[in-house]
Structures are given as C-alpha cells and as structure tokens.
C-alpha cells in the first residue's frame, strides 16, 4: 500500500512540474504587451490637455531558461533524486556518503558550482548531542523517561499529542526549528520506554516544528512576510491571529491520524527483527531502573539550557549585539546562541554531574547524532548544489504555473519550499507573486504555512536526526525518496492548516 502512496505523490509532483515546465515554453501574448499596445493605439487619439505618455519597451529579463537548459535541469534533478534514493536504501551514514558522490557528479560532470553544506544545522546537531549525550552518561535520560512515564501512565499515547505541541511551542519561542534537535532524544526515549511506536511522536513533532515557523514572531520567514503584507494593513498580530489557530487545528488533526498510524511496536516486523538480532534492547520496566546519583542534576542543567535558549529567542533585547553588514548593530542570531548554550550545558553536566568526558562519545545518543550529522552533510550539500544553481529556473516555472492558474498558488508555495528546502525562499518568492495576482493578503497568509513543504524530500536536518535517533526503525527516510515517515503528517498538517486559515479569514473577516 505504501507503493500506492508513493505513486500518487510522485504522479502529482511530476504532473505539476511538467505542467509548469511546459507552460513556459508556450509563446503566449504578454498581457503587458496587450495593455501597452491598447494604450498606444488610443493615446494618439487622446484629446486630453495632459501630456501623453508613450509606452516604454520592456527589455528582456536576463538569463531566460531554454528548452535544452530544462532538459539538463531535469537530468540533474534525477541525479539528485537517484542519490537520495541510494542513500536512504543504504541508511545511516550511507545517506551522507551517497550525497557526497552526488555532489561530486553534479560538480565534475555537470559543471555546477558547489553549494553550501548546512553548517548551522550540523553545528547545532554537534552541540545538542554533546549536551544530550552528557546527560545520558549522567543517567539524566533515564530520569526524564521515568518522570515522563509516570506522567503518561494513565494515557501513554498522550505523547503523540504532547510532543508535537511542545516542539511547536519551542519553535514559536525561538523562531527556529533548530531547537527541536534538543528534544528529539527525549521524545524518542520516552515513547520507546512507554512502548509507543516512536515514529508517531517523532514524525509529528518534526512537522509541528516546521509549521511553528509561521506562528513565530521571531522567525526569519515571519520577518520576510511582514513587509510584503503591511501595505494591506496586516501587522504581526493579524498574521498570528490567522496562523496560530490554524496551526493548532492542523497539528491536532495530524496527531489524531498519527496516533493510529502504523503497527503497534510489539507487532512491527522491522522492530522485532532488530530485537532478534540484538541491535536494539527492549525497553526496561521503569521500576527496574536505578538512577545514577547526579541524574536529576544533569536534567536540570539540560532543561535550563533549553529554557535559556527560549528566553534569548523570544526577547532579542537580552542578546548581545553584533555588527551588521551596513555597520549598524544587530541582535545576535539565535543559531550561534543555541550552539554556545548547548556546549556550555554539556560542560556544566561534565562538571556538576561528575561525568567523564571520555564516556560521552560512547553514548547511543552521541552515535546516532553523529550519524545524523554526516547524513545531513552529504545529502543537504548535494541538494543545495542543485538548488543554488537552478533556483531561479525552478521558482520561475512554478511562478508561471501560479500566474496562469492562481488557484494553484498553495500547491506552488508548497512545491517551491520542497524544491528549495527553505521556508524563507518560498516566502520571499511566492507570497509577493500571489499578492500581485490579486489574491487577498489574508488568504495568502492563510496559505503561507504551505512553506512547511520543506519536509517533502528527506533532506532536512530535523528529519534525518529524528530518523537516526529512532533505533526501532519505525521512523524511516523511506525507500523511494518521498515515502518517508514524515510525508503523511506533513500532507495532513499543511492541507488542514491552510483550510483552517482560509476559514478563519473568511469567517472573521481578517
């Protein structure tokens, strides 16, 4: 049945891409030319006293994409998809290694300029896993699991709802889904200890952290959309009044579906095979766990670090200022703050929870985090090499699609986010286009959460880290690129959130 999902989604994407690509080959009469010629023909007859303006001829925009260029882009795209497929089949660091091979081919065979590896995300993973692994070495993870298990005793499945909303809240407070890395090990361990299929809360939380961007007053994408809609009298509060309730509804429906998704852990074939091979140990009953002496202290330090990051994220006045490019002062970004605070937390755990530095790299969390980092390195580098060289053509094609059929704007926003793996890029390119097409600003804001389409391909750090953290094998990056664990919650969440947003705008006249 997964094949059906795969075929349906692939067909939709290919049909849309073909639609967009084909439409730009057509030589339609420019609407601008129509207006210019109509004005030209009548302006000479004008008897108005005012001076008559003559139409100015439009210079051709630079670097239009030819059909041979499109063929090349398609081949490069197939190379990227092929190596992602090889990587996800290989699993673990194989994802990163095959991504590296793909990058090599794109650069040496196709002559593309190398893109940029996702340094920020990689360094955050390193910092967060250092702190989480130190906490694990101190016995803190076991303590957290024990506490959470007690809280969830009556309803263990509540983690399927609680985890996504917590990750959503963290993202709202800090303006970046990079904070989500810090709770991935916790969600995984708590769900596993309660015999909940880890895929459910992990995949749901990953998607919730992505939708949190459009509900956060301090996110980069929010800073991008505000100047675009302010002329239509939409301030930050107006945007949040649409996106937050819509996202809460979208996440709830997603959690509802996810809480019933997949086989129960004890019936999952992949998990049982891993248990049989000794690759993973069954969860120990909570009562049997004997806590290490400084476990609570390590948890306190770790959670304080997360709280401090939230404080710095939400109140930019607390942050030190750094020099901007124009010589002015800007508040320090949250990204280096996450890295600094998490490394400091790791050091404090070593110091106050009496953990030996040499024990930290031996922890399972450290191992899975490093694998995730290497996987992200290769795969995101390859994707970025393709995107950085072809972004204008991709955006132009999908923009053309939306221009011809404005009702396709939501799908176009989703696909641009998917193909650029950037919420900000999708916002800055597609939102103005939608507004220029005459779609109301309120409705464009309602559609905007479609930028969570960044999770469509398994090339994002949060997806890779979540999949690598789950030792049961239920959270996967798929075998056919689009059939990963995050696809179902992603599709449900963006569609429901957009529909709920539109309903909010229509009902409340926002």
């Amino acid at each position, binding site marked *: 049945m997964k094949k059906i999902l795969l075929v349906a989604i692939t067909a939709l994407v290919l049909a849309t891409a073909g639609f967009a690509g084909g439409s730009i080959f057509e030589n339609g009469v420019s609407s601008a030319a129509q207006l210019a010629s109509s004005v030209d023909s009548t302006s000479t007859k004008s008897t108005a006293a005012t001076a008559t303006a003559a139409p100015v001829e439009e*210079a051709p925009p630079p670097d239009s994409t030819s059909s041979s260029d499109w063929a090349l882009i398609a081949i490069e795209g197939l190379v990227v998809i092929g190596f992602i497929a090889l990587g996800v089949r290989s699993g673990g660091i194989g994802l990163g290694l095959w991504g590296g091979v793909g990058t090599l081919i794109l650069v040496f065979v196709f002559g593309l300029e190398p893109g940029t590896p996702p340094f920020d995300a990689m360094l955050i993973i390193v910092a967060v896993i250092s702190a989480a692994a130190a906490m694990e070495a101190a016995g803190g993870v076991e303590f957290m699991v024990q506490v959470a298990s007690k809280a969830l005793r009556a309803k263990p499945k509540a983690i399927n709802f609680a985890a996504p909303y917590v990750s959503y809240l963290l993202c709202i407070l800090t303006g970046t889904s990079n904070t989500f890395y810090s709770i991935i090990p916790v969600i995984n361990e708590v769900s596993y200890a309660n015999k909940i299929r880890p895929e459910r809360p992990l995949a749901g939380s990953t998607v919730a952290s992505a939708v949190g961007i459009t509900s956060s007053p301090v996110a980069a994408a929010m800073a991008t959309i505000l100047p675009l809609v*302010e002329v239509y009298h939409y301030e930050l509060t107006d945007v949040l009044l649409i996106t937050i309730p819509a996202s809460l509804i979208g996440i709830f429906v997603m959690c509802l579906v996810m809480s019933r998704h997949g086989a129960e852990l004890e019936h999952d074939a992949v998990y049982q095979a891993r248990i049989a091979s000794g690759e993973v140990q069954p969860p120990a009953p909570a009562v049997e766990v004997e806590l290490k002496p400084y476990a609570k202290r390590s948890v306190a330090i770790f959670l304080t670090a997360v709280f401090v990051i939230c404080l710095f994220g939400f109140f930019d006045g607390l942050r030190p200022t750094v020099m901007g490019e124009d010589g002015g002062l800007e508040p320090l970004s949250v990204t280096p703050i996450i890295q600094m605070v998490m490394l400091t937390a790791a050091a404090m755990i070593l110091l106050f929870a009496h953990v030996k530095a040499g024990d930290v790299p031996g922890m399972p969390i450290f191992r899975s985090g490093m694998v995730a980092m290497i996987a992200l390195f290769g795969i995101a580098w390859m994707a970025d090499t393709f995107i950085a060289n072809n972004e204008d053509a991709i955006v132009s094609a999908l923009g053309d699609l939306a221009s011809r059929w404005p009702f396709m704007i939501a799908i176009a926003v989703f696909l641009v986010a998917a193909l650029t793996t950037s919420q900000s890029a999708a916002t800055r390119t597609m939102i103005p286009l939608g507004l220029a097409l005459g779609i109301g600003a309120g409705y464009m804001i309602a559609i905007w959460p479609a930028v969570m389409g960044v999770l469509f391909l398994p090339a994002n750090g949060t997806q890779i880290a979540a999949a690598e953290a789950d030792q049961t094998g239920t959270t996967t990056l798929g075998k056919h690129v689009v059939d990963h664990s995050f696809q179902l919650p992603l599709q449900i969440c963006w569609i429901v959130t957009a529909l709920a947003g539109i309903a909010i705008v229509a009902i409340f006249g926002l």
Partner: protein
Amino acid sequence: MRTLGLVAAIVIGIIVLTGVVAAVGSGSDNTGETVRASQWADDVCGTAGTWQGELKDLRKEINESTYGARDNDGGSGDVVEHVVFVRSIVPRTIAATHDTLLRGLDRAGIPDANQGKQAALILRNWAVQTQNALVVVHRAYRHRPKTTSTAFASIAGAATVLGQSAVKGHAAFKQVSALDPALADAINGSRNCSDLMKEQP
C-alpha cells in the same frame, strides 16, 4: 486498505484546498479591462507596496548576512545558511520588479476614468523603466568584478537605480492624481495608497 484511504483523503484534501482557494481568492486578472477607479487604486498601490516590501527584505538580508546576525528558520537549504552577496541581489530585484510590480500593475487593469489608460500607462512605464535600468546594471556587472572599483560601481549602480525608482514612483502616482479628479479621489481614498504614500522615497 487503510493506506489507500489515507492517500484518497490527501488527494481529496488537495482538491478541496485548490477549490477553496479558487472560490475565495483565485485572484482577479483585469488585464486590459476597465475597472472601478477605487479598486484600481487599491490594486496598484497594493502591488507597489508589496514590491517595496520585497526590496526591504533584500536590504535586510544584506544587512544581516554576518554569521552572528543572520536568522535561520532551520531548513537545511535555508537561504540564510548562505552568505548574501550584493551582486546576487540585482537579479532578484529584476525578478521582483518583473514578477510583482509589472505583473501586478498589468493585472490591475485600467481605471474607469477619463484618463484611465494614460494613468495605467504612466505607472507601467515607471515599472518598465525601473526594470530596464536594473537589466542594464546586471548586464554590465553580471560577472564577478575583477577590480575593487568595479565591485563598488556595481553596488552603486543598483542602489542608484532603486533610489531613483522610488522617487519616480512617487512622482508617477502624483502625475496620475493630476490627470483626473476621479483618479485623485480614488488614490486619496485608498487605504493602500495612503499607507504607500507615507513611505518617504
């Protein structure tokens, strides 16, 4: 069977979403058509305001492109993972001018006034002149500058074009207002236009 149901639900969801978007905000393409002057004023001022917003975003990206200052939404391909070069901004301003400003002005149609076509043409000419000037700058400096002076000249070229365009934009709207009292009333009565005119060129 359950997966099939989920696939069907997703496909239906996409179809419903597309239908809802078509119903509530499928956009109004009034290219070449005559529309009420008040609606036209709202549309053209909204378009110009969105275009200005794009330029503000570009300015912000340049200002905050240092490692410490730039924000990151968390996407691994996020644009903020990259260093933003001033040189790379020029093609983006051309795209913004073409896709948002020109396209939006065309779609706004022609105001229902004595000098309606003339008014639409004045604004369109302003947009085309801005785009053409940016294309000239791009052609001159599309390759990596070989000397420091050329690099600075490329920055100055784009900045000058955009600075002049902002001034000319305000002048164009004033010229349109002067064409016909009905157009002046429409522009003065539009909230979008009053907000746009508050911005200093």
